[in-house]
Structures are given as structure tokens and as C-alpha cells.
């Protein structure tokens, strides 16, 4: 019986009410301050150029203009930092060229901001931007990752190379991997591109800053997934504003998918402007700006080899990847293609040898960083495509080949050859369930039906395992992270028995306002409606590292549990005092504290009131009040896994691909709210199918982004996608967090792209077309070309 309330219930979301009524408050909705002013940026129209001069004199004198900033104003201000130090194979640390608030000396991608106008109105600021005379000497654009490595035209002249780093993992395994491949009975090789994507959260970025001179305090409202992290980055690295003088507030945020993790120059600019002009300064991105400047995702060029013995046992995976990091290092840009990618290159398999090489390359494009999946989609795509190709070459069934190499349920915890220890899983059970719910047995009939309509029908499958619930601070610290990745929660019980739960996570679609109260209510045995969360405001919440990397439940949720456990412990002490019993004799059930084996009890509400009106209270033993904080640092990543399959119809005459069925069977461990978890999978599937069939951020050779609007960048629409079949009944609990929960936010985007591509290849092969690979997106033109050139 599905539960009504508490952990495991599909409680409907309370935040929906304001969103459905149009009463959400996104950053751009905030009522204008009485002193509101606007910021508009002057952005480069060339991809690579030397700034010879910028004349702002005309702009400064235009109506309504309050100030004009250029890169020179920020020369002494710190650069936006890289959050993870990666060392190259030769022992050299990675290159970290400065990422300034405004471009200074050079512009390095189309859209790179080199000046900003602050004016009374946005229209006046826009007009003044057009009056800025910038003499920029255009240079050839550095666009191709391989050519960039041998070019002496540098994105950052001061480092004398376009290579950020050349990373190997695990170096000690390199020789054994090379040997395994040399001696193998069979080696499958595949070259693939993981196509560059634009996250395109529907809400464009927006930042608004104010400065209070009397107390020297700043407030920044901004579209962020992690206000405390943003505050930390601005404070410690960029502006130097002490954290206790800077409040960062992320109100309702319309999606992020990673693009709103990062600190961006616009945030620093509005802060500096607010102080300089003594006004509230707001900047709102338009969609074109978003395309040009929001961190892009993916953009790997990879060669992967899979070595097997004659029976199809996996002996080794070896990969070489060129990862485009763009013109500047975004905050997690160096972690995404390394420790969130290379460490997953053993997949679901017992393969004994893995070696990954990644060369990160600067180009004159927008910065590239984590986007839903952040490195794990890249790993899964490479693995599951080469496995599929291998199956064909060996004449083996693709599911059978995977099962043959799966880690078995009795092998956990499992130390993978790529360096991670998976805590739990059962990949065969996932595959069994997938075969059942997807009606794999019925595929043959469905293929006949498609063929009768003149269409080719293909079946594609994929297994994935991923590492999320980011992250164990000790481990990532050793690997080069410059931040900890724990999280925090404060549970505050008010005198009248209702609760405020301050969480370091941030909800921008994930339903935290509903799910966190479910958990606390379940633990305390009280009505979830009496519990509210507080999120998004650094002045109200002790700390947090925010929401990304499928971490809110696994990390912040665990902090919530620990804080609630502390509440229960103290409440039992108080109840013991009230009931004149030892606290060890007190049990909590359904919101009642009672002495074990008796009818004597007090309600949670009575205990709360007592805590705040501590008459006759043992103040030597118990402090008044009932509020507890917990910081939770996970012991490990969590390792969700899945078996996905997909059936496509392909029109051989037009190359058009239609996804007819998409099935996702995931192991998320213990599920808190099945409805919300399913929704997360749906969203990931939509984005993954989008990557596979539709989306491509395309720059031309001059560095112009040709897909800079929704006219040119194909976002999936409702009629591009089917209903999905989603199952998470085969959960194996996470062994190391109190919820037993594994992250679920990114799985759909990780497992779906290879599934779709595998299905299309299967369709074409079934029609006698000898096509072994097509790079994403599998547009009709690409599919048609592959068929006709095969």
C-alpha cells in the first residue's frame, strides 16, 4: 500500500500553489527598489581579440547614465577561481589563467563582457552601451581542440599554451591496461563526440545588488543553486567582501541544471556598481546572452577502446578525451572531465583494467562546466556505445554481454578498477525488471508492425552506474578539490510546536519544501504541515554547499536527519524531566513521548512549549530552547545505477528518428517521494533524448555561436518525446547515509543518450544499413547521410 504521508509517500507539492497562481518570486519579479538602477553589458562580437582601447566618454554623458565600468576597474580584483586543482601526468599543476570580472586586455569568446553601463533604466543603459567605442583587434579564433594544442595562437598568452592539463587516471594502471589491450583476443575501438549543449534553464540569469553604507553591508539577490557557495567565492576569491558583510539570496529559481552553480562576473559587477553609485543595481539576462555566456555542457572528443577475451569477458577500457573547457575556467570545469568522468570508466563491470587520459583545452568559446550529469553522461556514453559495438562485432546479444560482465550482488562493497568503491547495487535485478516492464519480449512483433509501415525499428539498451551525492570532503580534498562538499541543516522547534528547518540545499524544481518536511515529520511523528523549510538566504541559514550533483537528499537530507536526531535526543531529556523518568525510559511514537511500558506521556507540542517556558527546569542539565544544527559530510559518493532501453522508429528516406518507447529502471536506494523522484527521471530523460537527437551548441570557425536562440538550438518540445516508463522498485539502499538514499536528479540524462543512439544503430542495421556509429545529435540529416554514405 503506498503511504499517505512521511517517507515514501508521493505527497503533492505545497510550492506548486504559488507557481500555479503566478505568485512565485523569481529574481526578476522582485519589486523594484525605490532607488533601482539597471546594468547592461557591452559584449564582444568577436571570439578572440586584443582590446586596444575602450572610449566610454560618450556613454558616460548619456541620459540617465550613472557609471560605466571596464576591465580596468577590476584589475586589482581577484579572478573567478577554479574550484578543483588537477595535476597533469608530468606532475605539473594545471594552468589557471585569470578569469576577470570584465574582460581586460583581450576578449576571448563571443559574448565576453568588456564593459558595463549602469543607468536609471535598462533602456538608457542599452543605448549607452551602443555608444561605447571599443577598438578590438580581431585575431583568428581558436576553435578546434586538437588544433589548439599545436597552435601558437593562445587563448591566454600568459600561459603559453592552450592546454589546461593532461590528466591520467589511474597512472599506476596505465601499463597493465596497455598490456591487456595488446594481448587481447578482441579490441573494439570507437571515436565519439559528446556534443556541446546549452543548459537552457527556462529562467534567464538575473542578479541584483544593493549596498548599505551605514553598515558597509551588501545584499545580492541572484539566480543561484547555492547562495553560500556564491558568497564564499565572491568573498574569498573575487571581491574580498567579508562573508559577514555579504548576504546572498536565491529566491525562486527557474531551473539550473548546473548552469546556475557558478559565480559569474555579472554578480561581482552589480555588487561593485551598487557600492559605486549607491543604488540598487539589477541585471537581467536575455536568452541570447544566456546562450553566449551561461556555462555550456559536455563537448568531449573521445576515443575509447574495449578489450575482451574470445568469450566477451571485459579485460580493459582505455580512453583518450579532448575536453573543451572554453575560454575561461568555470568553477567546476576541471573536476567535470576528470574526477566526475574518469572515475566512472569501469561502469557496472568487473573489468580489471581501466586507464583514462583527458586533455583539457582552452578555446575561444563560452566556458564549459557541469551540466546535468557533469562528466558521468560522458563516461556512460563512451562505455555503453563501445560495448554495443563490441557486442555486434562478437555476435553477442548486447544485454547478455553486459550481464556477463556485471558486478554481482554479493561483491559489494566493490572497488572498481577506476578507483571508486561502490557501496551497493544489483544490476541483474535492474536488467530483469527492465526486460519485464519494457516488454522486451514483444519487440519482435512491434518491429514487424513498424516495418509494415515502411519504418525501421531499433532496440537499444544501456546499463549505467554513476557517482553522485557529491561529495566526501576528505576524498575530494585529496583529489584536488578546494572546497568541502558537506552540507548543513538547523531544525528549529518553535515554542508553539511548529518547526523551521533551515537547509543549505536550494530548491529550483526539486520539491524540497515538500520533501524535507516529509522526512522530519516522519521522524517526529507530527504533521508535515507544521514544518516549513527555509532555503536560499545566507543570512538565515548557517551554511550549505547547495543543490547540484544529486546531493540534496543524500547530503543535506542526511544533515536534516542528524539535526532531527539531536532534537529527539534533547526532547527525550525534557520529556524525561516532565514525566519524572530517566530519558532512557522515554520512547517517541507518533508524536508522543511516553515512559516505556506505561500510559504516561507528553506530546511533542508540550515538550516544545516546556523548552521555551522552562519553569521548574533542570538548567544544570538542559538548556532552554529546542534547536539543533548538524553538518553532514558524506562518507562516500552514492552510486545509483540503472538499466534503460529504448525503441525508435527511423524513416530510412528522411532519417527522422522517433522515440516510441523509453524505459528507465533505476536503483535510487530508498525513495523519499516517489512522485518527485519519477519527475526527476522524466526531466533527465527529456534532456538526454534532446542531446541524442536534437541539441547542439554550434560555433563556426570564426567563433560565432550559430545556435544562439531557440530558433536555431533545437530544444525538445512535447511532441518530440513520448510518455516514459519509469521504475525504481529495485532499490538497494545506500549503505552509508541515514536515509539509505542515492541521488536521483541526473540519472535520466546519464542513461538515455547511449540508449537512444544504440537503438538507432540497431534500427539501421536491421534494415541492412551498415552503419556502426553516428555522432549526436542524430538529426534527420545526419542519419540520412550515414545511411546513404554507408
Amino acid at each position: 500500500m503506498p503511504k499517505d504521508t512521511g517517507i515514501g509517500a508521493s505527497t503533492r507539492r505545497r510550492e506548486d500553489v504559488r507557481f500555479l497562481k503566478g505568485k512565485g518570486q523569481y529574481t526578476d519579479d522582485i519589486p523594484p527598489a525605490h532607488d533601482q538602477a539597471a546594468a547592461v553589458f557591452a559584449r564582444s562580437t568577436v571570439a578572440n581579440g586584443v582590446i586596444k582601447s575602450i572610449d566610454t566618454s560618450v556613454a558616460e554623458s548619456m541620459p540617465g547614465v550613472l557609471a560605466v565600468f571596464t576591465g580596468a576597474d577590476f584589475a586589482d580584483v581577484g579572478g573567478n577561481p577554479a574550484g578543483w586543482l588537477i595535476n597533469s601526468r608530468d606532475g605539473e599543476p594545471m594552468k589557471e589563467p585569470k578569469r576577470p570580472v570584465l574582460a581586460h586586455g583581450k576578449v576571448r569568446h563571443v559574448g565576453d563582457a568588456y564593459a558595463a553601463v549602469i543607468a536609471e533604466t535598462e533602456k538608457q543603459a542599452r543605448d549607452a552601451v551602443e555608444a561605447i567605442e571599443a577598438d578590438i583587434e580581431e585575431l583568428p579564433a581558436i576553435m578546434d581542440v586538437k588544433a589548439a594544442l599545436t597552435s601558437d595562437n593562445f587563448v591566454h598568452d600568459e600561459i603559453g599554451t592552450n592546454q589546461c592539463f593532461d590528466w591520467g587516471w589511474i597512472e599506476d594502471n596505465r601499463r597493465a591496461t596497455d598490456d591487456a589491450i595488446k594481448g587481447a583476443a578482441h579490441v573494439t575501438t570507437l571515436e565519439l563526440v559528446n556534443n556541446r549543449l546549452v543548459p537552457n534553464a527556462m529562467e534567464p540569469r538575473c542578479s541584483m545588488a544593493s549596498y548599505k553604507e551605514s553598515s558597509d553591508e551588501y545584499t545580492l539577490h541572484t539566480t543561484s543553486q547555492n547562495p553560500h557557495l556564491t558568497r564564499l567565492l565572491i568573498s574569498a576569491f573575487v571581491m574580498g567582501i567579508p562573508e559577514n558583510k555579504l548576504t546572498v539570496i536565491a529566491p525562486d529559481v527557474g531551473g539550473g541544471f548546473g548552469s546556475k552553480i557558478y559565480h559569474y562576473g555579472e554578480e561581482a559587477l552589480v555588487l561593485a556598481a551598487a557600492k559605486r553609485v549607491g543604488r540598487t543595481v539589477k541585471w537581467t539576462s536575455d536568452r541570447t546572452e544566456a546562450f553566449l555566456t551561461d556555462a555550456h555542457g559536455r563537448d568531449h572528443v573521445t576515443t575509447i577502446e574495449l578489450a575482451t577475451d574470445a568469450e566477451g569477458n571485459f579485460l580493459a577500457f582505455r580512453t583518450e578525451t579532448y575536453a573543451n573547457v572554453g575560454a575561461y575556467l568555470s568553477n567546476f570545469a576541471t573536476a567535470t572531465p576528470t574526477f566526475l568522468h574518469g572515475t566512472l570508466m569501469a561502469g557496472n563491470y568487473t573489468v580489471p583494467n581501466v586507464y583514462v587520459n583527458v586533455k583539457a583545452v582552452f578555446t575561444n568559446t563560452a566556458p564549459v562546466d557541469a551540466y546535468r550529469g557533469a562528466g558521468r553522461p560522458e563516461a556512460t556514453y563512451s562505455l555503453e556505445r563501445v560495448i554495443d559495438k563490441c557486442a555486434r562485432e562478437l555476435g553477442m546479444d548486447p544485454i547478455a554481454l553486459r550481464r556477463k560482465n556485471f558486478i554481482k550482488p554479493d561483491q559489494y562493497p566493490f572497488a572498481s578498477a577506476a578507483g571508486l568503491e561502490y557501496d551497493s547495487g544489483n544490476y541483474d535485478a535492474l536488467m530483469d525488471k527492465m526486460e519485464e516492464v519494457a516488454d522486451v519480449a514483444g519487440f519482435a512483433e512491434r518491429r514487424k508492425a513498424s516495418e509494415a509501415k515502411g519504418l525501421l525499428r531499433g532496440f537499444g539498451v544501456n546499463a549505467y552506474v554513476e557517482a553522485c551525492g557529491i561529495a566526501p570532503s576528505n576524498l575530494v580534498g585529496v583529489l584536488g578539490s578546494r572546497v568541502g562538499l558537506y552540507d548543513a541543516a538547523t531544525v528549529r522547534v518553535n515554542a508553539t510546536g511548529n518547526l523551521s528547518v533551515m537547509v543549505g540545499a536550494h530548491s529550483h524544481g526539486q520539491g524540497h519544501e515538500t520533501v524535507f518536511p516529509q522526512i522530519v515529520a516522519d521522524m517526529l511523528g507530527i504533521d508535515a504541515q507544521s514544518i516549513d523549510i527555509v532555503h536560499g538566504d545566507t543570512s538565515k541559514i548557517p551554511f550549505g554547499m547547495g543543490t547540484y550533483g544529486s546531493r540534496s537528499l543524500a547530503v543535506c537530507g542526511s544533515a536534516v536527519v542528524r539535526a532531527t536526531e539531536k532534537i529527539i535526543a534533547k526532547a527525550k531529556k525534557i520529556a524525561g524531566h516532565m514525566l519524572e523518568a530517566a530519558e532512557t525510559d522515554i520512547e517517541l511514537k507518533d508524536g508522543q513521548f511516553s515512559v516505556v511500558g506505561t500510559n504516561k506521556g507528553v506530546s511533542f507540542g508540550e515538550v516544545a512549549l516546556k523548552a521555551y517556558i522552562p519553569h521548574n527546569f533542570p538548567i544544570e542539565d538542559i538548556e532552554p530552547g529546542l534547536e539543533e544544527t548538524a553538518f553532514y559530510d558524506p562518507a562516500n559518493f552514492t552510486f545509483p545505477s540503472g538499466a534503460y532501453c529504448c525503441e525508435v522508429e527511423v524513416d530510412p528516406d528522411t532519417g527522422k528518428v522517433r522515440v516510441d518507447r523509453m524505459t528507465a529502471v533505476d536503483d535510487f536506494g530508498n525513495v523519499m517521494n516517489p512522485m518527485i523522484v519519477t519527475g526527476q527521471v522524466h526531466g533527465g530523460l527529456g534532456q538526454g533524448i534532446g542531446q541524442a537527437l536534437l541539441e547542439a551548441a554550434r560555433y563556426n570557425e570564426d567563433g560565432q555561436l550559430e545556435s544562439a536562440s531557440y530558433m536555431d538550438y533545437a530544444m525538445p518540445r512535447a511532441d518530440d518525446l513520448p510518455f516514459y516508463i519509469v521504475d525504481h522498485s529495485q532499490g538497494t539502499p545506500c549503505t552509508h547515509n541515514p536515509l539509505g538514499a542515492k541521488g536521483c536528479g541526473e540519472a535520466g540524462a546519464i542513461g538515455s543518450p547511449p540508449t537512444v543512439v544504440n537503438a538507432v544503430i540497431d534500427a539501421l542495421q536491421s534494415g541492412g544499413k551498415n552503419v556502426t556509429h553516428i555522432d549526436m545529435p542524430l538529426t534527420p540529416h545526419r542519419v540520412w547521410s550515414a545511411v546513404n554514405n554507408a
Partner: protein
Amino acid sequence: MTKVEMTVNGKQVSRDVEGQTLLVSMLREDLRLTGTHVGCDTSQCGACVVHVNGKSVKACTMFAIEADGADIKTIEGMAGSDGSLSVIQSAFQEHHGLQCGFCTPGMVMTAANLLKDNPKPTEAEVRHYLQGNICRCTGYHNIVKAIMAASGQDVSAIAAE
């Protein structure tokens, strides 16, 4: 500046606007009805859909002066006067048809127009009608399900959890 007069969610309003002021700007900035959102600059995304004289229109693609004399309904006008959610809004909540909420006003307004034109749409008809509304969060599954449920059709066969 030109004076425009219109009815918005049942109330008469009158404003002076510039010729170039978009309807969505007038709604958001002058009338402070911020439920109608701006998500793009090429009229694709649909976050700005409102009803003008009963038809769904993208408010970013219309000048305020073109709406002079019109009857406008925005998302703020969809709930009951007692604050209760409309059938469509309730269905979206019941079926988890929204996540971040940014596309949601446009989705609700478009859905309302669809169900007026086509009271019992098929799945394909709903998906086709939503071509002008982009969502990045939901993968559309629960949006389509919510709209079909709002039309009174049985959606129990559509996989839920």
C-alpha cells in the same frame, strides 16, 4: 507615450505606454503581474502566454498598444476568487506537472485555450498544441498527463510512479 485602456483579469486598467512597450513588459513592470514570464527573445518558449480576448497569445510578441480595448487574462486570473485552484491548476498539482514553475503559467494558459478548442484531446493533440511552450524540467510527461486529466479523461493507464 500613448494611453491604453484594457481589462486585465476583470479589472479596468489604464496606462501610458511607449509605442515599443511589449504587452509582457506592461503586465510585469507597470501592473506588477509578474506571473507572466519572459524566457526567450524569439517568441519560442511560451512562458509569456496570456489570453487576449479569449485566445492564447504570446505577450512578448504583442505591443501593449495593440491590446488597447482588449480583455486580457493572465495566470493571476485563473484561480477562483476564493483562491481555489482551477481544474487545470489542480490537475497540474495532482500529477506533478511542474517542477521549477517558470514555464508553468504559460503551460496553464495554453492548456486552458486547448481545452476550450478541443475538450477531449488525444495525447498527440496535446503534444502538438504544446509546441509553443518549452519546459526544461519535466520532460513533458506529467504536463501532458495533467492536461488530459483536466479534460476529464482517464489517465490511470499512463505510468505514474
